[in-house]
């Protein structure tokens, strides 16, 4: 008797619906065991992770703040991935956007520049992110270079460029040599939505991006082209769709969104440019994109869910003295189960009984 994983004739819509729920159920079951082994009350721990952060306005704001860059970047990435273009370098585009936008903020510091500063920063950041993403895209369509490698390598270039700027020319003269620019002026700062909180305009922009992506994919010909090129490249060629053009387009959009997320993070919660502005948002967003099934609404939910585990993990650390590493294990287990369960949408297990006659025939 043998257990075989075989491809389904067509995708199972039932499993597609049930799979995330099963994954979350399995994660919770595993975590209960893990908490019990650690000697923590599993119910209280799960409460700290999942429920407590949802019960007060402060934590809800923090979830939105944390999810904002993740969702924005993931939306852009999903367009790339749908079109079969593999942008792995959103982290670099995020950093370049942050740098480009900060340029205006640094140059206008202490002057009486007006309300044009922030909008210019946002536009410039998006443009810079798009241009930066075009490098791997053009290398792919012109020279056939693997965009996975080139986009990834450009992350380190961006990282070091930012590093150079804040250690050298843009360093805060009164910052005791610490690698950071001075705090941005109020006109160069993303406005807060709630007095005393940290929720900022960026979260609204992220929601608009989600809506725009949903319209693009669901209602426009371009969106249709993106999906067809990814799902059925041959059909797309027969249909006269230009795959190269779509690679360039989706890379540009995704770079622009990552760049925008970068400047919003810097001009929002951080308030100045420094190394370490991104705890790996560009990479975490790849997970968010797939967790959300490359669907705008799904990405919004996935981004919020991942943000919830960050905030919940912190509260579990405070309330239950559960080490930070458990939070990371927890995120890992969640992703593992989601991907494992998702594979049953296209595949299924089958018990295979060896056929005696065939077996005899081979002797």
């Amino acid at each position, binding site marked *: 008797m043998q257990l075989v994983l075989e491809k389904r004739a067509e995708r199972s819509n039932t499993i597609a619906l049930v799979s995330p729920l099963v994954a979350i159920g399995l994660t919770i079951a595993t975590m209960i065991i893990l908490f019990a082994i650690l000697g923590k009350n599993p119910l*209280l721990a799960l409460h700290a992770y999942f429920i407590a952060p949802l019960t007060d306005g402060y934590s809800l704001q923090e979830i939105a703040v944390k999810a904002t860059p993740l969702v924005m970047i993931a939306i852009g990435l999903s367009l790339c991935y749908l079109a079969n273009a593999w942008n792995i370098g959103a982290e670099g585009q995020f950093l370049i956007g942050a740098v480009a936008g900060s340029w205006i903020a640094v140059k206008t510091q202490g002057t009486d520049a007006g309300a044009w500063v922030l909008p210019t920063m946002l536009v410039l950041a998006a443009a810079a992110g798009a241009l930066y993403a075009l490098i791997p895209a053009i290398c792919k369509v012109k020279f056939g270079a693997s965009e996975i490698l080139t986009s990834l390598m450009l992350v380190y270039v961006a990282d070091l460029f930012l590093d150079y700027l804040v250690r050298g020319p843009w360093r805060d003269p009164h910052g005791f040599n*610490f690698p950071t620019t001075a705090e941005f002026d109020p006109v160069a700062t993303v406005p807060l939505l709630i007095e005393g909180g940290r929720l900022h305009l960026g979260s609204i922009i992220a929601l608009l991006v989600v809506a725009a992506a949903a319209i693009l994919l669901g209602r426009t010909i371009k969106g249709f082209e993106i999906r067809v090129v990814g799902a059925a490249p041959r059909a797309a060629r027969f249909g006269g769709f230009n795959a190269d053009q779509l690679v360039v387009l989706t890379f540009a959009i995704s770079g622009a969104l990552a760049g925008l997320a970068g400047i919003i993070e810097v001009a929002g919660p951080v308030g100045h440019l420094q190394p370490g502005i991104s705890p790996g948002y560009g990479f975490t967003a790849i997970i968010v994109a797939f967790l959300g099934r490359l669907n705008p609404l799904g990405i919004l939910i996935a981004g919020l869910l991942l943000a919830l585990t960050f905030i919940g993990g912190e509260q579990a650390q*405070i309330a239950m003295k559960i080490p930070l590493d458990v939070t990371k294990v927890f995120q890992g287990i969640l992703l593992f189960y989601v991907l494992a369960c998702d594979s049953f949408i296209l595949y299924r297990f089958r018990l295979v009984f060896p056929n005696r006659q065939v077996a005899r025939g081979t002797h």
Partner: protein
Amino acid sequence: MRKSLLALAAGLLLAGSVSAASAADKLKVGFIYLGPVGDLGWTYQHELARQALVKELGDKIETTFLENVPEGPDAERSIEQLVRAGNKLIFTTSFGYMDPTLKVAKKYPNVHFEHATGYKRNPNMSTYSAKWYQGRYIQGLIAAKMSKSGVLGYIGSFPIPEVVSGINATVLAAQTINPNIKVKIIWANTWFDPGKEADAAKALIDQGADVIMQHTDSPAAMQIASERGKLAFGQDSEMIKFGPKTQLTSILDTWGPYYIARVKAELDGTWKSEDSWGGLDSHMFAMAPYTNMPDDVKKIAEDAQAAIIAGKLHPFKCPVIGQDGKEIECKGGDHLDDGQILGMNFYVKGIDDKLPGK
């Protein structure tokens, strides 16, 4: 099974009221850590101090820490989470938490904050640090005596004044023994990254350094020096077990007495915003035993330590000559004053390198 589940559920419901009751009895004290509690360096020493605090005042206080908090956008949230969890005195234990701590401090005037190694204060935000340059001076003497090649290797973290003053103190001391001493500096651009620290140590040894000193937090450099048969100084904590034949001494951060004093003040209601910058005399830090050196070198180190404690020896005794050959203005009488050391942004003469960003 059913019963225990019910009990758990009841516990869950009661949790809020129970914790509120205990919070009223005990003072809640929070800590923000840069690294993991097991970094065996900077964060570990803060954690040891927290444990000492609990041992001393455990019946009156309840402590909480958040570890691995990056010095970026997440720090402000982490500090605020501690405030919202009811902590009334919060220690933020790295320079990079300065602005986030100040932001949260301004928002919650009734909570008291203690920020390590920074320079911004508020009526409810103190700063505390140690005069580590005194320990660096002693290390400089030992290093110059012990080095055969006359080349010292120095792993810097960030070129902030605290680190720069440490390099200068080391070199000024070493020059009193060997006027031609050379120091090679590598900036790791991190406080804690064992891989990078090990690479830096290897590169320094390859460049001829035979005594390794560090301003980063892990014992990685000590291990490399030990493998290569060189000598090294520990950092923050006792690292002798990583180099029993390698460690000369180590600057030990001993925050315990300070934490206990500040928490007692909070309990008495006498806490107020201060700037504490303690040296060897005030036990803000200590030197690990002088090991792996001949008795005469040990004596030089011990004499220097005694002279510093007695106030007879100041590492930045005037005249201090800058890299450009010009004498640094002497604002503290016969030595540089605290402000000049806290804002130190120049190399002394004899360092054959350029200060990053200069």
